[in-house]
């Protein structure tokens, strides 16, 4: 959503920066934006040029004696550069690795000078608050968490897109009233980006505010809200996020560098069907060490996806580890496909897309799927309009072809 703010109304963000700079007496400002958002970069540069032209930026702005200019810096693809001190290192032309705080950037920041770092949305809101007053702003939200927040609502809801809601709205309202609910039964909502947590349906009445989110083991973070239904395997999802964190760890401290690695390796093992009873204990211990000893926010919050899925979806872990079964039919080693004869009207679509020739049957009669030929490419699942192709526990007698998933 930060991207659409920069693309849709770059002036709001730049005006907010100008106000903040005047407040603290800064002379130079930087917008650090991902290079993957070329349109945002273009529009920012255009808006800055306009502001210079009108005299809003530059030397002695409107005779006030106040000097300020803004430069756009494109990121180069490192997630950890969102962390304050890493961001500063990156702006200085170094590897984007965090350093311990204190000293905080507000004292020792860019080139050793005091620096404040804020999110685009924060700056974008500033002009409106100044113009309309604090009373106006605090009519939205609830005491302690006033104002609004934009979210990127994506995943399996009927409607996806950017939403702006008052703080304190419940997850249920967001998922079901705004998002229109899910087609298949709702399973979980993941908030806050790769470092956030997964919350179950029991937590749908949690209000979306900073304290409630962190009490439930997640964060507001990036403002991402990903809704998942029965077809998402949460052990696999935890592995996905952990792999991201492992790849993005800057490698400076041991807890994060090795911790993310152990978490991924353990989850890989579980997903492959080689999980052992004490693996959950290993995940816990490592996650705990990371939370307590990693240096920056990335390493401290990286275990959130693992801890929250263990906390709210322990039965899925048990299914993978003890029953060697993936109930969501995602982890290819842990289920077989079959066709539910009650749901299959025999339309023939799946027969056409199966490259392994595993499906056969006559028109208008339920089809059958030969497990020994199936490579679980999911082509049939994607074209079936009747959800007739379902996962079942693996048969111990029929030998399967090698799975389509290569796990390194």
């Amino acid at each position: 959503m930060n991207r659409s703010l920069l693309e849709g109304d770059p002036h709001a963000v730049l005006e907010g920066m100008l106000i903040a700079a005047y407040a603290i007496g800064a002379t130079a400002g930087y917008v650090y934006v991902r290079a993957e958002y070329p349109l945002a970069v273009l529009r920012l540069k255009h808006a800055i040029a306009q502001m210079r032209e009108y005299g809003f930026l530059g030397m002695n702005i409107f005779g006030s004696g106040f000097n300020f200019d803004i430069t756009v810096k494109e990121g180069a693809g490192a997630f950890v550069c969102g962390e304050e001190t890493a961001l500063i290192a990156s702006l200085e032309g170094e590897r984007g690795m965090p350093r311990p705080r204190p000293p905080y950037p507000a004292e020792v920041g860019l080139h050793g000078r005091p620096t404040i770092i804020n999110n685009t949305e924060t700056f974008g809101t500033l002009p409106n608050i100044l113009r309309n007053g604090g009373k106006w702003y605090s009519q939205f939200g609830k005491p302690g968490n006033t104002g609004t927040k934009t979210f990127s609502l994506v995943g399996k809801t009927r409607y996806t897109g950017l939403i702006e809601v008052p703080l304190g709205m419940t997850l249920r309202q967001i998922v079901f009233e705004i998002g229109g609910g899910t087609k298949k039964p709702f399973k979980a909502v993941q908030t806050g980006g790769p470092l956030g947590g997964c919350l179950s349906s029991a937590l749908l009445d949690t209000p979306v505010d900073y304290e409630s989110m962190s009490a439930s083991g997640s964060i507001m973070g990036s403002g991402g809200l990903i809704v998942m239904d029965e077809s998402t395997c949460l052990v696999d999802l935890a592995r996905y996020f952990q792999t991201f964190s492992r790849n993005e760890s800057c490698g400076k401290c041991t807890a994060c560098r090795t911790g993310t690695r152990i978490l991924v390796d353990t989850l890989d093992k579980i997903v492959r069907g080689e999980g052992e009873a004490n693996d959950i204990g290993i995940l816990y211990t490592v996650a705990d060490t990371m939370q307590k000893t990693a240096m920056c926010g990335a390493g401290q919050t990286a275990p959130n996806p693992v801890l929250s899925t263990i906390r709210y979806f322990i039965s899925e872990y048990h299914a993978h580890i003890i029953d060697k079964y993936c109930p969501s039919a995602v982890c290819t080693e842990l289920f077989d496909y079959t066709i539910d004869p009650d749901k299959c009207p025999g339309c023939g679509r799946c027969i056409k897309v199966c490259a392994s020739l595993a499906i056969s049957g006559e028109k208008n009669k339920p089809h059958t799927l030969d497990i020994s030929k199936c490579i679980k490419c999911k082509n049939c699942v994607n074209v079936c309009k009747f959800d007739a192709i379902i996962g079942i526990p693996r048969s111990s007698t029929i030998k399967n072809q090698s799975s389509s998933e290569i796990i390194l």
Partner: protein
Amino acid sequence: MIHNEELLSFTGYSRDTGDLIPLLQKCQKQFGYISEASVRQIAEYLNISENHIYGVASFYSQFRFKKPGRNTVRVCIGTACHVQGGKQLSDELKSTLGIQPGETTPDNRFDFEEVACLGCCAQASVIEINGKIFGKMTTDKLVKTLQDYE
């Protein structure tokens, strides 16, 4: 020896190391990758060692050190795309093109990489070919779309 066609232009860039990353980005825009010849020129311009430059450049996933193909395919493996099957698209590319992310096909027609979130999650799954975004991608559509690129 640096050939004419490898010359990097430095107009608009200061000799401050703060301009190192912008210079690397400009270099990648001009040539598609960071060559040894470019690193040598940047080192001289900023008066820092080549090692220092490789140290910084290798930290950031944006920079590539191998020449790209005629067409660049980028698959989003961000979260929203993952939930909608982005990994299947990546697997499909691996088998259709016969290369791994970060590699270039032997005929130089395609190179492909996996990237985190292309910023259009509501369109998931998303791929990008030569800067153009294709939303709601499926493996079927992907194979057809690739045929449009020579």
